């Protein structure tokens, strides 16, 4: 199963992510975002913990992805791998640990300004999940 796929968008970046489970779906969204930042190998020199909550599936996704933009800007952190990941579907909570490196060691592709709700969806199709996100860049 494909993890994510980029789609055409005139001004910004749009992608779909896929997952057998909701948990995989959120993880694959993060991986798509990492690829937007930088599409080559990044060393795992630093780790950060992420704890986010949402009011619904979409806001949880928005808040989860936004956390990486925050770390990018405030800690100069380029994420590359998800070390651990736990989704609490009932409480709409994600606890994760990601590894990566300082941005200055790489010629990064893109600075993402924001995650948006534009055209965002998360839905179940037959037995798997699919989502769509547009990033403002």
């Amino acid at each position, binding site marked *: 199963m494909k993890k994510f796929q*980029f789609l*055409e*968008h*005139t*001004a*910004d*970046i749009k992608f779909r992510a896929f997952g057998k489970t909701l948990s995989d779906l959120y993880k694959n969204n993060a991986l798509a975002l990492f690829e937007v930042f930088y599409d080559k190998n990044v060393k795992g020199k630093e780790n950060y913990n992420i704890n986010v909550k949402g*009011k619904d599936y*979409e*806001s949880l996704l*928005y*808040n989860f992805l*936004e956390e990486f*933009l*925050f770390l*990018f*800007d*405030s800690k*100069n952190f*380029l994420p590359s791998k998800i070390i651990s990941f736990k989704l609490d579907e009932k409480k709409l909570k994600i606890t994760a640990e990601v590894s990566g490196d*300082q*941005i*200055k060691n790489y*010629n*990064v*592709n*893109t*600075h993402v*300004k*924001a*995650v*948006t*709700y*534009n055209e*965002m969806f998360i839905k179940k199709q037959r037995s798997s999940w699919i989502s769509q996100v*547009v990033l*403002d*860049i």
Partner: protein
Amino acid sequence: MIKEKLKKIEENVYELPKEENMLVPGRIFFSKKMIETIEEDSLKQVQNVAKLPGILKYSIGLPDMHVGYGFPIGGVAAFDLDQGVITPGGVGYDIDCSVRLLKTNLKKEDITKDNEKIAKALFKKIPSGLGKGSRFNISRQELKKVLEKGVNYIIEKGYGKKEDLLYLEEGGCIPGAEASKVSSKAIKRGIGQLGTLGSGNHFLEVGYVEEIYNKEVASVFGLEKNQVTILIHCGSRGLGHQIASDYIKLMEEEYGFKNLPDRELINAPIKSRLGRDYYSAMAAAANFAFVNKQIITHWIREEMKELFPEKKDLEIKVVYEVCHNIAKFEKYNIDGKEKTVCVHRKGATRSLGPGRIEIPEAYRAVGQPVLIPGTMGTASYVLVGTKKAEELTFGSTVHGAGRVMSRSSALRNIRGEKIKKDLKNKGIEIEAGSWKSFSEESPNAYKDIDEVVKVVDELGISKKVAKLIPLVVIKG
């Protein structure tokens, strides 16, 4: 197809009739040629904006309109202060993404042989800030002063001259900004980014005045043929992005989004606590953006002095700075009565005509300078605001060319190395953070700036004053 519903009112003006829950019609300012390629989704967004409470007259799409989030980019709407709303979706994530124009007493001939040297030196001096931070260090306390006092504060710290203040929109500080309305997360994202360009469509350009269309106004702005100019295009960086996102969340919590045509159009009544808080935080982000350009201006002055030591009387002065993504309280004539309204400009430039109190005294008799950056390697324009804009578009005009090609298709179809070579052949030296940012921002990915400017000039919502041609481009 929404496009089929467009009714031509006159040359370059189309109406999108009121339907469903639209409170006012849409008004699209496109040429016949441009209507052929208008994006359906951007028209849908014009319709959605027309559904927001308290919207006045019509929901506007300017000639550089393309799909945004919530509002289209190139979208303008004004709201009644009592019935109306304020929405982060009408301002954008890059709050006060804006443009500043500097003029010099250098001539094109003085610098053409040094293009490459200038490009390299400025690229080194002005950081993109992409994960590398800024050379400009500031404490949290000082940052709060930047947010509330704007450019004045940083000039007191030695970054520029008092007279710079005279030539900035809002005098370089939007009143009502409150640092306490900015989250600690936003502060953390922005604190290391003052004095950085950022990436995307942001750039710094050294160019020259190739053509003057209106001698009288050009001389009021202090522009003449062959004069070297410098354009700075950047915004409020991570601080502004986080403020937008924070208030989208707060407004969702307070008001819910179930009845909205688009979740990105979440809003709060202008006079509500949350509406006022958002305005104060937005104004703080705008002040950050003003200061950001002031620091960059200071560094440009330092670097140019070093590059041209023989030019003892070198002067670099501010022509003007305009906001592109902002909500403002301004007075307009609505149905025969003067009324203060809240104008949202999302990817649009204020274009006030002669006499308006908001315009710097030196320019007040002719109208405000309107700065329209082209894309990497194409012309930029200086126009002047008009009374016609105050009548037709709540004192607004276009902000740039507007994208037509997606970033991914630009990447597939245009090679960065080739663009650099082509531009060099045209006499334009360019330095960028990566090949990728070259390709994504290729001139071919945008509408023809000349056509966009021609339409606004014909419409009279801003009039051409001068055309600037780039010689050196620095991209994040």
